[in-house]
């Protein structure tokens, strides 16, 4: 069996339909349990109750970057092998990525105000995240602006390649430039920097929940795009007849 079999829309619809209920159940269980558990964690000695924001901010930021990287992979598959399902998967992922980026930006601003004394700072990580959000908006706008779906997939694929620089930058900006307000990795394994277990375990659970939520939304949205494409093909065939 080859992974390229799933480039066949019929095979994709059949397989995704079978696994979707399990993914939805897993996403709901992990996200709800993780967020409730996180909300009930004790106050941090330094940050007080604001530490509870980490259970939204970190998983959303993680997904914001990784969704763009997933779009990069599927866009490359489209550009190289011309598999329609991969282009539609990239298109389907973008709105979810934009929402995750927006959650990371909003929760970061809300968290930053009491901890840093400012809602916003032109710090390397914050700025690259804002640019990543603008890339998501531009990517979605480009899909809507180009009428021919294959041309739209080509152009958005190239845009995705360019935007990947900012996706990687938003992850490693703190390491590149040793300045700004934002701290380094939240889940450092270095001795003395490791997060306390009381926060670490619910954080792992919400990260798993956000990943499964993205997967569920990706499958549903790709199925929607396949149906829309099939309907457009049927209408075009009728118009030609």
């Amino acid at each position, binding site marked *: 069996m080859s992974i390229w079999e799933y480039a066949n829309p019929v095979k994709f619809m059949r397989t995704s339909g079978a696994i979707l209920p399990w993914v939805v159940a897993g996403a709901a269980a992990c996200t709800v349990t993780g967020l409730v558990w996180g*909300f009930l964690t004790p106050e941090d000695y330094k940050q007080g*109750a*604001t530490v509870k924001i980490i259970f939204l901010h970190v998983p959303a930021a993680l997904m914001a970057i990784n969704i763009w990287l997933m779009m990069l992979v599927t866009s490359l598959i489209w550009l190289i092998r011309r598999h329609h399902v991969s282009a539609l998967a990239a298109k389907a992922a973008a709105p979810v990525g934009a929402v995750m980026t927006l*959650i990371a930006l909003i*929760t970061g601003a809300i968290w930053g105000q009491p901890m840093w004394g400012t809602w916003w700072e032109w710090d390397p990580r914050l700025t690259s995240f804002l640019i990543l959000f603008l890339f998501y908006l531009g990517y979605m706008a480009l899909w809507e602006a180009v009428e021919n779906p294959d041309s739209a997939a080509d152009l958005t694929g190239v845009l995705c390649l360019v935007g990947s620089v900012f996706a990687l930058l938003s992850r490693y900006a703190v390491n590149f430039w040793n300045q700004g307000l934002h701290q380094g990795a939240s889940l450092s394994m270095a001795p003395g920097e490791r997060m306390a277990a009381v926060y670490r375990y619910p954080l792992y659970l919400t990260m798993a929940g956000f990943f499964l939520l993205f997967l569920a*939304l990706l499958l549903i949205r790709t199925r*929607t795009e396949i149906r829309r494409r099939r309907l457009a093909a*049927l*209408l075009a065939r009728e118009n030609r007849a």
Partner: protein
Amino acid sequence: MTELGKYAGTVLAAYGASLVLLIGIVVQTVLANARARRELQEHERRG
């Protein structure tokens, strides 16, 4: 019930805004999928 202390507004604003966005994308996804399925089924039924 958990104690939020002087940061109650901050924490609740972060959770509220995030939940609105998450629920929004879920609802939009489900409605768009239902609409696409219905339109395709109607078209295929008409032949």
